[in-house]
Structures are given as C-alpha cells and as structure tokens.
C-alpha cells in the first residue's frame, strides 16, 4: 500500500513542514487553518468548477496517439494540459489560489515565475478576479523569456526583476517570499509549484489533482480501465506530476514516473536533476531534496527548459522517491529536444520544453503491447520557439 498522506504539520514522511521565519508565521498559520475549509465550501467549489470549465476549457482531452503507440508498442495517451487557457497546467493552481485569496479578504497577489508560465497564469487569474498582481522574475529569465514578460505586463501585472543571487527562479522565489514578509497584511503569495512551506505543497497538489481526476474518468470511458499501467510527467518543482499522479497514488497497478531535467548530464555540473544528485535540506521553507554543496549553500541548476530549472523539488516527490513509490529518471537537454522533434513530426503537437522531458522517457522503457501509458503534456511550446528554431 502506498502512503502519501500528509500529517497535520504538513509532512510527507520526513519531508515537508514549514521552515519559515517568524515574520511569516501568522500568514502561513492563517492559510493552514483555513485553506481546507474554504476549498471544501460549496460556494468555492461552484465558482472554481465553473471557471475551470468555461474559462480554462476543462476537461482537457485525453488523446490516444496512434503514432506514438505504434512507435513504442504500447497504448499511449496524452493528457492535453497544453490546451488550457494560457497554455499550460499552471492556470489550474493560479485560479484556485486567487479565488482562495479573494475569499480570505486579500486584495493583492505576489508570485514568482521562471519561464513565465506561472506568472502569466497568475496575472490572468488576477485580472479576472480583480486582484492586483506583482510577479518576481529573475533578471536572466526576463531576458530569455521576453514574450511572457510582455504578456504579464499587458495583463496589468507589475513585473519586478530579481537581481539577487543568480537572478533566476530560485532568486525570484526568495524575493517573492521577502515581498510577502514586507506586505503580509493584505497580500497572498501564489506559489507556482508543489514547493514551499506547508500548506502550499498540499494545496497546490489539490488544485492540480483535477488532471488525474479527469484522466481516470476519460480512460475508463475510452478503454474500460480507470487505472493506466504508467503515468509519466516532467518534474521541476513537480506540480503537473503531482496533479497527474494524485488519483493513482493508491493504485497497486499504476507505475508513476517523473522526468527530471539532467541538463547537459548529471555529471556535468550543469543539471537540474535534484533527486539524482541532490541531498536533503531546507529550501523555500520545506524539507526536501535540493542541490547544494557540502557547506549547505544552494547551487544553481541548469536546464534548457526554464520551467525545470529549479534546485529543489516538492516534498511529496522527495517522499515518493525515497519510499520508491514513484521512479524519477534524469532526461538530458538533447533527449528532450529529440522527443519534442518526434512528437511534432508524429502528432503535429509542439510541446513545451518541460513536457518534452516526459516524452523522452518513452525510448527508455520496455512496455507490453497491452500497457496503457498516459503522458501528461503539461504545456505548449509557443514560448520555446526560439530554442526549437535554434536546435531542431
């Protein structure tokens, strides 16, 4: 039997918790005490359900790929999160949290973003719900993700460059947390992944779990089976994987596979494969695996995909990894690019670079022809055109 439930303190096994300075105690405490009640309330459920359906476009299709099935000798289905409004799964969480913030009486939102997908989703949710929005983004990422910066600004968000540390996602997250400390009274922090102090990992997993809820229903309808043999998803912080895994965590049948970004290779020092090369410590208020040197300084990750370029991983994944309830494979830049090229050619779908890492798991597996494999296609590749034009 798989165990994945959280304790009341927000631990998955030994991972998770809330390692926050006293300055954030009241805010985090307020969230911990209220999020379950608000999320479970009829008025919240009704509003979110209607927004997910009519605004986001859910349910997203579960698409049987005849070409990939033929190529890899299995029954391969793609969960089309790329078809969501704003182009990725990030909107599921951003809308849920923005609605929650509003019901908690907060008028302002702060968020961090790496590639800009979570920033765009949050800016969108804030515009829709009439909340003001500040997004921190590393100066380096602002330079390499210009279209998403323009989208956020067009949507009325204030984009603040993070100039601390190495000026990427980790630093944008630090700065968003610092901003929250300085504006604690009226601001809610919408974290973009299943990371951060309790209750964020559980809350974000909850909002993303709609993915596996739909997969289960759609798969039953299309194949007569509710549980696939495999679910494969890419993992940076791990929100789309947490959402795609969630309703199969209790399954004895379903094998869960996460694809983390190996960058230029796990021995290259230019990698973001946290579970493969990391060790246990504290990052952004959570006890989990992270990339660090022997003095406990958090090291800078590298991946061709800005969304997987994170030196930590959600505590749920750390726990699933440690207890061997899920397997995590390291996928290099080259493998991801090759997988993207194949999907574009075979299915006419340009995936996000992040999602391409999940497809790169396929050639590493030995399937039975009867195996049902679901790949979470977490986002579309519009934002990655520069990279694709350069390498493909």
């Amino acid at each position, binding site marked *: 039997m798989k165990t994945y439930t959280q304790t009341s303190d927000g631990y998955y096994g030994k991972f998770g918790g809330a390692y*926050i300075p006293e*300055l954030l105690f009241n805010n985090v405490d307020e969230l911990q005490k209220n999020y379950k009640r608000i999320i479970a309330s009829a008025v919240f459920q009704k509003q979110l359900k209607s927004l997910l359906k009519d605004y986001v476009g859910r349910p997203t299709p579960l698409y049987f790929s005849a070409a990939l099935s033929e190529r890899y000798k299995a029954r391969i289905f793609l969960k089309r999160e790329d078809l969501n409004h704003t182009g990725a799964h990030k909107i599921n969480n951003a809308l849920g949290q923005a609605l929650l913030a509003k019901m908690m009486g907060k008028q302002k939102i702060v968020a961090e973003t790496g590639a800009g997908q979570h920033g765009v989703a949050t800016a969108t949710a804030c515009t829709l719900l009439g909340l003001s929005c500040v997004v921190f983004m590393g100066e380096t990422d602002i330079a390499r993700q210009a279209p998403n910066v323009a989208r956020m600004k067009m949507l009325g968000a204030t984009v603040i460059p993070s100039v601390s*540390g190495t000026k990427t996602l980790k630093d944008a997250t630090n700065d968003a947390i610092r901003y929250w*400390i300085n504006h604690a009274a009226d601001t809610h922090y919408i974290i973009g992944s299943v990371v951060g102090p309790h209750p964020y990992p559980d809350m974000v997993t909850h909002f993303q779990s709609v993915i596996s809820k739909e997969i289960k229903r759609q798969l039953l309808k299309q194949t007569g089976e509710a549980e696939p043999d495999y679910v494969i998803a890419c993992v940076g912080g791990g929100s789309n994987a947490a959402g795609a895994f969630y309703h199969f965590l209790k399954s004895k049948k379903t094998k869960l596979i996460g694809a983390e970004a190996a960058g230029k290779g796990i021995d290259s020092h230019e990698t973001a494969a946290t579970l493969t090369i990391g060790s246990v410590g*504290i990052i*952004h208020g959570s006890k989990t695996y992270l990339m660090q040197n022997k003095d406990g*300084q958090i090291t800078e990750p590298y991946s061709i995909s800005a969304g997987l370029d994170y030196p930590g991983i959600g505590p749920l994944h750390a726990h699933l990894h440690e207890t061997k309830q899920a397997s995590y494979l390291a996928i290099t830049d080259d493998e991801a690019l090759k997988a993207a090229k194949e999907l574009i050619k075979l299915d006419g779908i340009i995936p996000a670079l992040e999602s391409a890492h999940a497809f790169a798991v396929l050639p590493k597996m030995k399937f039975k022809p009867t195996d049902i494999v679901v790949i979470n296609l977490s986002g579309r590749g519009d934002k990655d055109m520069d990279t694709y034009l350069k390498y493909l």
Partner: protein
Amino acid sequence: MRTLQKAIRENNHNNLSVFFTAGFPRIDSTGEILSILNDTEVNFIEIGIPFSDPLADGPVIQHSSTVALHNGMTLELLFSQLKAVKGKITKPYLLMGYLNSLLAMGIEAFYSKCFESGVRHIIIPDLPIKEYLKEHKPFADKSGVSPVFLITPSTSEKRIHEIDGISNAFIYLVSGNTTTGNQSEMQTGSIINITAMKLKNPVIIGFGINSRVDYLQACALADGAIIGSAFISNISQSKNLKSDIPQFINKIKTINLIGK
C-alpha cells in the same frame, strides 16, 4: 567571557548589539571585526553565517552574504576563526544563520563546534520551535548552547509566552513586519503591549534600527537594540575598520548614561 545573560543585565535596558556577516568584506575580517567591537560600547555581538538564500534578509545583508561566499567563507572556517580569537574576546557573541547551513554540518557537530568556539547562543530564524525541542535541544543542551527566538509585533501573546518559556538569554523582537534593513516605523503600541507581558527574558529590538534615535527609542520601549544592515553598510565602505567601527558605535551609543 561574560555570559550573555550577565552582559544584558549589567546594561540596565541599554543594550546595543551589532550584527555582521562572517567573511565580509574580506574572508579574514571576522576575527578583526570581533576584536575591534570588543573594545567598543557594544554589549554583545551577532555573527551571521553567510547563506546563499537568506529569506528574511534585505539587500544589504544579502549582498554581504554573497560577497562572503564568493570570498570562500564556510561555516567550518568560521568556527576555526572563532577558535583562534575566543581567548581575546570578553564580550559574548552569538551565531545567526539559516537552518540549512546547520543541517549540512550535522546537528550534533554544529552544537559541539559552537561550544568549542565560545558560542553559547544561536539564532536560526527558520527553525520551528517544535523541531528545535525535538531534534536540536538534546545536542544543544549537551553543548551548553541555547537558542534565541524571534517574535514580531503581531506574534500572539500565547506564542510569546511559549517562546519566553524556552528562552534563557533574550527575546529578539523584530521591529515590524519586514525583512532586515528596511526603514519601518517602530510599532510602539504593540511593543509596549509585549513588554507589559512580564516576560522573564529581556526583549531586544532588531530589524530596521539604524540611528541613535532608533536605538534610544528601543531602549526606552524595551531592553536595547540590534543593528545589522546599517553597520554592514558602514563597514562595506570602510577603508579603515579600526577607526570607522568605533566611530560608528560612538554615534549610536556615546556613553552609558541613558536611564530608562
């Protein structure tokens, strides 16, 4: 070396503490700054363990950490620097840092090295009380080390009493809801409420303290003040620490004449 408890009591509510980052501005500055401060009106000293991701810190302390790490500073080296000067330092000094640095060294090793280096108190802002009691306290007690916890003007009374109960040196009151080094209005009303709680520990105010006026206000409201970012800004521009540090301290605390 005086105990921290004694040093704070002797000063009759007029405590001044200074925080600086180990390994900044130069890798070998730690011992030098400590020695210079030892001969000033400062009552106790906080030494920051540089960390790559200091969540509670504003730009000045972040920058000092980045420079220190770039200089090659490590926790291991800090302990050896402290060991080298501990015989000469008569004022109590504390370590302040983030939990990940401590975990990387190992909890037991960290506390025993604190003891060997003359450190009797630590401040770890992201260490939850529950976790301290469960996983740290046995090792901290064995090494004679005890923690100082942070509270803010919005910390609940129940929680303040809980923190008071497990503290034995002082309570670190953050001036407002802010990261370090921010100019924020001292929340006088809330601070008066806190000091009226009849706590067994003295209350010392930090974050955003940068002038004599702030220091005097903190002494009037509580038991003293801690200056971090303003001190670091000062030494980062200094060409002569030996004259600039005493000058900075003298501007804040001339002679110990201020009564409460």
